[in-house]
């Protein structure tokens, strides 16, 4: 199977409220950045475009179609969309290239969550008979998961606080972060609970923004003459929608996806994990078999800013950035979707 190269990546700054910017206006500057990185004009210069977004975020029907106005789709382009995080748009694009239907692909994800009440909007992605009509929000579901871990002695509140503290500290080096700063483990533990046992700082913020990436065959990457990293493996797995049937203290789907993506085939220098809640980073690190030698979420992860529907792609982009900067040889990116890490995608990226 031929390897696929990542040649460009950019994301907008995660902000609590993008103000007057509509989806097109959020996407265009990010696309212009990735076009600039490989020296192309617009989406006409790639073979395939795939995006990830969810119209329920901003409550605008066909917002994903409005997003196409950012592409320059005249004459018509080959375009597709997933109502998911753009990490799954990356997955579709990889398949497209592996099938031989394209040499290059542009992937972008965007989310404007500020117009709605995100945890309540997300409640409507749950099972529509037993859960969605109760309007149980995603933060509450995560809080119940955290309590299981704490009371079973799998993790401690101090472990969770350490995740938060490291995220904020790492985010100080990330110009796109929404939340950054110095907050010690004891500072975190001194905060009152928000949705017990979770503290507010255990939960990712709600952010507006977009991210974009260009991938291609290795031949095309050489033709463009830009630095690139290689995608060596990618796999995604999903668990049942019945929360009670899942072992919420583990992530069986991440474990399996990691195995299939080949995470264990070499050392992992860097890992970017889509953990919207601090305890979930601990679950993921275990499921991925990451140890001391791995730098986890050097960007601060999504606790520092969560571009809903783009954060998964952003994790891959962050790993790509570390590798082309020479800071890492091999990295793992993780994306998630659904309540309590229901659906997980794992990507292995290596130095070319």
């Amino acid at each position, binding site marked *: 199977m031929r390897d696929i190269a990542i040649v460009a990546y950019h994301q907008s700054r995660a902000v609590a409220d993008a103000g007057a910017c*509509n989806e097109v206006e959020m996407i*265009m500057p990010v696309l212009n950045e990735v076009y600039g990185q490989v020296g192309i004009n617009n989406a006409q210069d790639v073979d395939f475009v795939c995006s990830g977004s969810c119209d329920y975020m901003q409550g605008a029907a066909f917002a994903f179609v409005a997003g196409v106005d950012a592409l320059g789709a*005249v004459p018509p382009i080959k375009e597709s969309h997933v109502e998911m995080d753009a990490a799954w748009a990356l997955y579709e694009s990889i398949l497209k290239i592996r099938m031989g239907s394209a040499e290059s692909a542009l992937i972008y994800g965007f989310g404007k969550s500020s117009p709605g009440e995100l945890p309540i909007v997300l409640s409507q992605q749950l099972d529509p*008979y037993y859960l969605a009509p109760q309007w149980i929000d995603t933060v509450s579901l995560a809080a119940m998961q955290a309590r299981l871990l704490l009371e079973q002695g799998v993790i401690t509140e101090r472990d969770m606080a350490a995740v938060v503290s490291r995220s904020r500290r790492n985010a100080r080096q990330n110009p796109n972060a929404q939340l950054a700063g110095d907050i010690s483990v004891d500072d975190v533990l001194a905060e009152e609970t928000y949705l017990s046992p979770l503290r507010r700082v255990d939960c990712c913020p709600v952010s507006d923004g977009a991210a974009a990436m260009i991938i291609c065959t290795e031949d095309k990457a050489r033709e463009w003459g830009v630095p690139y990293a290689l995608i060596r493996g990618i796999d995604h797995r999903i668990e049942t929608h019945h929360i009670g049937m899942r072992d919420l203290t583990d992530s069986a789907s991440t474990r399996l996806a990691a195995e299939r993506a080949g995470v264990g085939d070499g050392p992992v220098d860097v890992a970017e994990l889509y953990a919207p809640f601090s305890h979930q980073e601990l679950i993921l690190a275990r499921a991925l078999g990451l140890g001391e030698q791995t730098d986890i979420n050097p960007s601060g992860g999504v606790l520092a800013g969560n571009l809903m529907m783009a954060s998964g792609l952003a994790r891959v982009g962050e790993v790509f950035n570390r590798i082309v900067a020479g800071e890492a040889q091999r990295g793992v990116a993780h994306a998630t979707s659904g309540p309590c890490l229901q659906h997980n995608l794992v990507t292995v990226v290596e130095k070319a």
Partner: protein
Amino acid sequence: MADQQDTITGIDVPVYLKYNFTAGAGPARFLSQVKNGKLTGQRCPRCQQVYIPPRGSCAACGVATEEELVLPDKATVQSFTIVSIPIPNNPIKPPYIIANLVLDGANISFIHLMSECVNEDVRIGQRVQAVWKPEEEWDYSMDNIRYFKPLDEPDVPVAQIGKLPVSGWEGMSDA
């Protein structure tokens, strides 16, 4: 819902979600000027097409439309339909005309109502002009224009629709 003895086979599951919609930056500039009775188009820096109402980008080129120009309130009928069903909660009685109109100086049509016309005489290429609400009723809305009414000007040939200069049909004839 079923009777007491029946097995449940279906349920009503209404979903109501509250949002605070924000107009995009490009649309907001347009709407702010509509409030003052001005129709402002935005031009693509690459292909020079003028969009009204603008959405923030030239969809053909994928670039921001930042240059603005004020357009007249005269337009040409690009297409239309005669509607025989009422609009819910709207005083307009059927049959009425909904038309795709292109303002002079613009290259893209928008949808609005036509009135003060004989429905059967409405035709593609017909010249029309906006009939505005009283100024005190103006808001951030294309509804500031009540409807468009026919103008006593010669029709625009189909090939010329959407290509008139800001000076309109007469400007075209002079050229």
